[in-house]
């Protein structure tokens, strides 16, 4: 974290600011403020889950699930934007983000409020119309997961919104080569023991008065982008149990409209064993996706991802430090293969269909089929 902050300071000091070229200068003259923009993404998913009837586990979102997002941005002047976004979905009505962004000078922006944690490539790309699959990759899955209660989701469900302040610096190293640094100090995730509680973490108040941090560094050059992320904090009311996250991501666009995305993430979470001694569970996850345009209206994708949870026993009440009747052992793996097509009926209207095969080390295999209508404006 201190390395990122030091780099950010260096960027503030060395950033070169040439005179604006003609198009930019003309826009400066013409622009009028304040200016509003409104956006919305309405997604309704119809799904079916197929597995052995004697060990069938339902998904929380099985059958029909909706995610309805409405947001607005107020551009007060060239440098200051205030934006808010609400979401009505699986958790009811929620304020997904409410943040003020102030561009201190070209390329350097400060932000404060409630915003997605700068961790992983999906911190800026998580809305249904931005993703080909209906469910997110396992490192960042939020819902639409068989055995979700047992696994307690993946590494970090996105959007992982939190309250705090942060800074972003976009530095141009050479023509077309950009280094981006992000850092944020936030309230942190919450939990009681054994693992993070993402339900509890959505509440606005803090539970331990201990700040948490997250940072991300990414490099993009032409069709290639690389990123490294880290985050950490303490999650229990006594500020005694810590969590540590790290991640790496790679994105290549081999052809216009085609993407290869590789991403890996890791989390270590402290917990107390029954004797009261400190122990730690570890999670690893990766995702690989190829997606592309086969026609102006059709996109296809193949996604393969996996999640491993070590050190905790998975039960229907969530991960536990001790085995219970019907629980898994302390080494758990799930892999998934998903494939599907996205049809753009018209600009702003998508129909996404996919089939997913889930292979669990300690539970029965499961198929999930999705048909999702997404309308965005």
């Amino acid at each position, binding site marked *: 974290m201190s390395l990122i902050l030091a780099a950010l300071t260096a960027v503030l000091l060395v950033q070169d600011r040439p005179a*604006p*070229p003609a198009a*930019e200068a*003309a*826009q400066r003259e*013409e622009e009028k*403020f304040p*200016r509003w*923009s409104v*956006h919305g993404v309405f997604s309704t998913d119809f799904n079916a889950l197929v597995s052995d009837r004697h060990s069938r586990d339902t998904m929380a979102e099985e059958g029909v699930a909706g995610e309805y997002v409405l947001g607005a941005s107020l*551009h007060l002047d*060239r440098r200051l934007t205030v*934006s808010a976004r609400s979401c009505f979905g699986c958790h009811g009505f929620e304020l997904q983000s409410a943040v003020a*962004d102030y*561009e201190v000078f070209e*390329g350097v922006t400060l932000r404060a409020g409630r915003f997605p944690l700068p961790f992983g490539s999906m911190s*800026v790309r998580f809305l249904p*119309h931005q993703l080909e699959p209906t469910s997110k990759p396992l490192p960042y899955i939020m819902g639409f997961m068989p055995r979700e209660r047992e696994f307690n989701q993946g590494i970090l469900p996105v959007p992982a919104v939190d309250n705090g302040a942060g800074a*972003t*610096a*976009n530095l*141009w190293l050479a023509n*077309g080569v*950009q280094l*981006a*640094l*992000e850092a944020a100090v936030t309230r942190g995730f919450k939990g009681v023991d054994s693992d993070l509680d993402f339900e509890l973490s959505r509440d606005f108040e803090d539970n331990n008065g201990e700040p948490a941090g997250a940072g991300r560094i*990414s490099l*993009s050059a032409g069709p290639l*982008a690389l990123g490294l992320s880290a985050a950490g904090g303490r999650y229990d009311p006594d500020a005694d149990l810590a969590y540590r996250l790290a991640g790496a991501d790679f*994105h290549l*666009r081999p*052809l*216009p409209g*085609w993407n290869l995305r590789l991403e890996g993430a890791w989390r270590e979470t402290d917990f107390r064993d029954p004797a009261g001694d400190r122990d730690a569970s570890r999670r690893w996850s990766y995702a690989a996706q190829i997606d*592309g*345009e*086969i*026609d*102006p*209206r059709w*996109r*296809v*994708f*193949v996604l393969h991802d996996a999640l491993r949870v070590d050190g905790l026993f998975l039960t229907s009440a969530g991960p536990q430090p001790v085995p219970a009747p019907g629980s898994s052992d302390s080494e758990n*793996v799930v*892999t998934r*293969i998903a*494939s599907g*097509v996205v049809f*753009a009926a*018209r*600009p702003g209207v*998508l129909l996404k269909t996919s*089939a997913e*095969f889930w*292979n669990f080390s300690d539970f029965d*295999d499961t198929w999930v089929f999705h048909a999702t209508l997404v309308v*965005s*404006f």
Partner: protein
Amino acid sequence: MGLPRHAGCLLLTGVLALLGGCLWADPLERPFGPDGRTIRQAIEGFPPERRADFELLRERCGRCHSLDPVFAARVPEGGWAAQVRAMARKAGAGIAPAEAARIASFLEYFDAERRKTAAARP
């Protein structure tokens, strides 16, 4: 952890679709307006500097999203500059300030041409 047969079939189907798609990819054939032209045909008729700006848009914006939300958006006249600048501020967006201005300028021009075409409908 071995790959079951039906999952292998699914993977194979997806890979074949991807390979087929590589040979078949073709962008932007949606309607531009009531005159029957596609977006691609309309852009091909734009002045060369506007076409260059479109290529820049395609390259830079395509990093995070498809062109679908760009052409679906209804942005009031003069509003693209603030919109594109807000996106260029995002970490790793890879859009330089001068490029953001060119992209916004293209989108204002594109919307103006679209409005002209709609107004000229018989």
